């Protein structure tokens, strides 16, 4: 830590409108260092990464590499300075070969811009050899399994001769054996003087491979130190903060309603989708909040879609109110009183160009028309009420949702399903990218719905959230439910252990 810093970021801040997602972050990494960057969802990690890759420009602050100050907000500048990133989402051109993807945008050339194919292949093969990765360079990326695609992404970053490598949940999609291999690769890189920023929820991985750790919370860097100096519980405590303790205490004030009213609303029995999840069994009771937690890639989202009818399971039995049923389409699920707050509100949830009001009635239009005619007065009053109830800001029904903050967008998405007066409410990561205030509001809404007797199923990776709102907690690892606890009879440590440790 005493050597000259390879990367030196000072005073970074980023605000969207009134929402500050990153506040005065000072972040330095030295050559040959593997730095873990941890924090719960919405802590500001992604924003920091985006600034370092040039995807966005910060509102304040500077970044220096090797003492040279960089122009921020330009991907090219960042790449040229030796910063490379492996994203959670694929950044490959699917119709091109592995070889081309490794050198995407920077293939070696001879005169006249002709590709130096031989050199490209040679360099790629050297790369493969150096990192002991086996892959068919001539295969089209679109034909590769996802894990292999991840390797291509890693190779792509490595091929940039990156001196600073950012890895955003690099093992999210990898099997255990591949994780070990990746860690070996990372150590090779470290010995050649590359600085690595390793972002992961997997505490095991952090203790296995990282030298130092930076903890972020609520948009701020709150702690930095050597991994060797820290214990797992104290790290967890740093991540979730005093606030969790406070919230947990607060949550204690709320009655935990494990098994709710005692009436089984939905019963899953051995649900299996080949290659995705298997043998999932649980009962969901009316009047409880049931949380499924786990890592990204543990197939929770896919599971919700099969419940909702937007995807199918292969075997097993689903009972809804005692009747065996499998929804063939969302339409059917909705008419049975099921609502689904999807994870990606931009891609699957909202119509960003439409108004708040239109979005609020989007899932429940059948309630708002008579003889095919819209009952506009009722829409007007219902959406007006909903906006007030959910405290959507600004309370302007004709405002396009695109112009709202993340938290208010999420409330609109939630409100869309509340209009249904749902008997079942599925929520997938309901507070991603939502500020603290809105989070609390959303939790209150969920509790209110629970108390009205709805059966609520929440999928969340945010442990703070899970501990705050759940009545019962299930842990999902690689497509299996490994444990189900009553919330007041378990501890955070136990859950973290089951998520990160026990499985691997």
């Amino acid at each position, binding site marked *: 830590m005493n050597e000259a810093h390879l990367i030196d970021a000072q005073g970074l801040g980023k605000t969207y409108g009134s929402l500050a997602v990153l506040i005065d972050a000072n972040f330095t990494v030295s050559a040959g260092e593997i730095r873990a960057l941890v924090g719960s969802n919405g802590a500001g990690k992604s924003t920091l990464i985006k600034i370092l890759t040039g995807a966005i420009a910060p509102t304040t602050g500077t970044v220096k590499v090797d003492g040279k100050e960089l122009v921020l907000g330009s991907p090219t500048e960042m790449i040229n300075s030796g910063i490379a990133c492996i994203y959670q989402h694929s950044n490959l051109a699917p119709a091109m070969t592995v070889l081309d993807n490794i050198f995407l945008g920077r293939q070696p050339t001879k005169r006249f811009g002709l590709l130096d194919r031989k050199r490209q292949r040679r360099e790629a093969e050297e790369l493969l050899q150096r990192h002991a990765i086996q892959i068919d360079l001539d295969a089209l990326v679109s034909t590769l399994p996802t894990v292999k695609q991840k390797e291509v992404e890693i190779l792509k970053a490595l091929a940039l001769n990156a001196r600073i490598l950012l890895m955003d949940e690099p093992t999210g999609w990898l099997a255990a054996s591949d994780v070990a291999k990746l860690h070996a690769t990372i150590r090779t890189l470290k010995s050649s003087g590359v600085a690595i920023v390793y972002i992961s929820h997997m505490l095991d991985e952090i203790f296995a491979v990282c030298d130092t750790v930076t903890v972020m919370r609520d948009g701020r860097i709150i702690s930095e130190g050597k991994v060797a100096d820290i214990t797992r519980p104290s790290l967890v405590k740093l991540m979730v903060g005093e606030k969790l303790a406070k919230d947990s205490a607060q949550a204690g004030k709320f009655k935990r309603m494990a098994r709710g009213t005692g009436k089984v609303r939905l019963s899953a029995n051995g649900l299996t989708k080949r290659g995705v999840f298997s043998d999932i069994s649980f009962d969901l009771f009316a009047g409880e909040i049931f949380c499924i937690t786990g890592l990204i890639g543990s197939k929770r989202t896919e599971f919700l879609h099969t419940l*909702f009818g*937007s995807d199918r399971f292969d075997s097993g039995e689903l009972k809804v109110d005692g009747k065996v049923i499998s929804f063939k*389409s*969302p*339409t059917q*699920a*909705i*008419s049975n009183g099921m609502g*689904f707050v*999807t994870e990606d509100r931009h*891609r*699957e*949830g*909202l*119509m*960003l*160009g*439409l*108004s708040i*009001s*239109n979005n609020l*009635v*989007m*899932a429940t*239009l*059948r309630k*708002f*028309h008579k003889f*095919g*005619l*819209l009952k*506009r*007065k009722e*829409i*007007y009053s219902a959406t007006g009420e909903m906006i007030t109830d959910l405290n959507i800001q600004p309370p302007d*029904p*004709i*405002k*396009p949702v695109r*112009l709202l903050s993340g938290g208010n967008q999420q409330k609109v998405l939630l409100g*869309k399903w509340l209009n249904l007066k749902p008997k079942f409410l599925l929520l997938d990561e309901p507070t991603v990218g939502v500020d603290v205030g809105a989070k609390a509001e959303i939790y209150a809404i969920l509790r209110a719905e629970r108390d009205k007797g709805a059966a609520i199923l929440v999928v969340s990776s945010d442990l703070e959230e899970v501990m705050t709102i759940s009545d019962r907690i299930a842990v999902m690892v690689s497509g299996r439910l490994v444990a189900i606890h009553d919330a007041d009879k378990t501890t955070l440590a136990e859950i973290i252990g089951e998520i990160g440790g026990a499985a691997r």
Partner: protein
Amino acid sequence: MIARWNLKSSAKLSKLAPYALPLAIVFIVIMFSIAEPAFLKPENLIGIIHQMNLIGIMAVAMTFVIMTGGVDLSVGPVLAISGLTAFFAMDAGLGLPIAIAAALGVGILIGTINGTLVAIFGLPPIIVTLAMLSIVRGLALIWGGPEWHLIRDQDAFTFIGTGHIGGISFSIILLLVFAGAVMFVQKRTPIGLIVAGIGENERAAYLSGHRVRLTKIAIYGLSGMGAALAGIVQSSQVHTSAAVYGEFGTELDVIAAIVLGGTSLMGGNGSIGRTLIGVIFLGVINNGMNILNVTLDIQLITKGVIIVLAMALSELT
């Protein structure tokens, strides 16, 4: 109410954009009337609507398709084949209602086939309707031959395109009624909202429980029906039907009108009312340049430049 909200909201979104087109129309009208005062004569202004009748009907019908991010290139031949259907039906001695129903039916059928290929098989709309453009034209030519078929002694049919009610041309009334009906569907029924929702975010619309595929098939059917209605009106106006009507370029004019009206080809919110403004915009340009006796070259260049400027303006504001 909902539609009004949309309009108002986009007004707030950017102060200029929604008024850009009406303002441009006013500006162009002023320019033309200075150059040729006769432009402002009431009969000429009505004439503009009369001239844009067919484009107007087709544009209104195709707006929903564009709103979902699709496109219908096959309207030209559908226009022709519906005129032929009406002619042959009447020629066979069938009554006017049957003839019109058959003509509209053919349009709806072709539209539905387009919609099915797009919605169920997931094929790209531009290619599906391009292929259909070729197929339907071929069918029309085989069926109708190269001749002009004179429509004689069909007073009721002729009335559709040339009659007047209370001094207003019936074809204009037809356009307004049709546009009004579609506008009503868009504003007062859930359909308009669902279509806009599909265009904005098809996946989200599906997950909100809407029958996305069925809706898409239906709106392509509507587009086909619009083209068929235009075919009936044209055949009535020119007292003939022929397989070559609706020549290449018709579909592009229709699409241009819709896009000028502010509906994005990428899909999303749109409005029948604004499509009509787009239609009037094109109509004013065409009419003004005809009345000024401008040569074809200047007409075409002006049209291209104005489309670019109008679209760039709405993109930048």
